[in-house]
């Protein structure tokens, strides 16, 4: 099953994407698959914050792991709704998810 999600890039442009839920992909990987400007430098280990985004919709996401907490405590431009895209697994509950990419 694919879900529809919305990504607002750093220029403010809104992208509607279809993300597969059966490929064990995370949000960072979905962005990369659609060639959005997300670097994913560390490959998804919650160690670089290049996939930081602000969650705009009210979806209930899985709790942050200690690694994600630690990385966000060192990252820049962090807000209350900051998450690392690489730690958000695509599943059906995230239908309609809307996020904005944080500045680099």
């Amino acid at each position, binding site marked *: 099953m694919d879900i529809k999600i919305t990504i607002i890039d750093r220029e403010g442009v809104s992208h509607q994407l279809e993300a597969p839920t059966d490929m064990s992909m995370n949000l960072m990987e979905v962005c990369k698959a659609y060639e959005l400007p997300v670097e994913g430098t560390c490959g998804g*280990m919650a*160690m*670089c914050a290049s996939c930081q985004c602000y969650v705009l919709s009210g979806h209930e996401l899985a709790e942050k792991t200690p*690694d994600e*907490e630690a990385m966000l405590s060192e990252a*820049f431009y962090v807000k209350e709704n900051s998450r690392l895209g690489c730690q958000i697994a695509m599943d059906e509950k995230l239908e309609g998810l809307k996020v904005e990419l944080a500045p680099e």
Partner: protein
Amino acid sequence: MIKTDIIIIGAGPTALFTVFQAGLLKLKCHLIDSLAQPGGQCAEIYPKKPIYDIPSHPEIMAGDLVDRLLKQIEPFQPGFTLGETAVDIQRQTDDSFIVITNKGTQHHAKVVAIAGGLGTFEPRKPNLEGLQHWEDRGVDYIIRDPEKYRGKKVLIAGGGDSALDWTIVLAEVAQQVILIHRRNEFRGALDTVDKVQSLKDQNKIKLITPAEVSVLKGNTHLQTVVVKQQEMTTEHSVDYFIPLFGLTPKLGPISNWGLEIEKNAIKVDNSLDYQTNIPGIYAIGDINTYPGKLKLILCGFHEATLMCQSAFKRIYPEKRNVLKYTTVSGITGFDGSRKEVQKSTIKSIK
């Protein structure tokens, strides 16, 4: 001037394996890397994390992979210029190259292999107004020599290993060390965290958490750092402010070398030999791009192997060469060492 056959820019797994493949062809290599130790990302970012897709290793720690590669290339005695960034390349009239680092070290070779991974690791800088103005005037992002801070007042910011490690080192040297971090929790090796705790308990350092630096003040040199701790701000008289927020890769000076760049990577001819648009300069591993490119260590190994065959032809256009199997030919190191298969004995059994 350092002279070699192949200058390798980078010292990650692909760069290291290039030394091996070049060595089989009796070509010498010299590696240049901006980090202080070989291994690239594997050593710097995730040495204690496992990799599962290295053929024949069901599981191997990234740090162990680097150690094994270093062991494997030992016979081929690679040279290293570490802690320096390759900033300039000059093509000579005979089509050889001179590569110069930010410290002015010069290297000469007929072939250059760029195996720079994600690029040069540069310190991540906090978003502080006027920060740039204080660089070299009291703001340092990298500690090169702790002696610089002897008897000085230092404020370190960060919550990872390097902030903790340097707090411990500078506590012995500096007149005063203040460590500030946005959270109460630190991410570091357990014994490092414990050591910092005991330094704090002994009043050898001052710890301010959860807090952030908000303003830098001074005249010709940094004098005061304003720290915001929840609703409270405090001013601290310091000689140095050292933000340690990790490293981030940038393609860096390589992007000005006239190489064809696409999406932050160097375009190469993958149907042949991973050469760039400049003959004699190759790009292998994560730093290159071509249709179907995959950024995997194992693909880097393959690219390095093909590239070395092409480099050999470039360096010795008149010499004939044929692929040899190490099991058959063994390995003859530049250090005189020799590895070969044990000869079977021919003897009749009565």
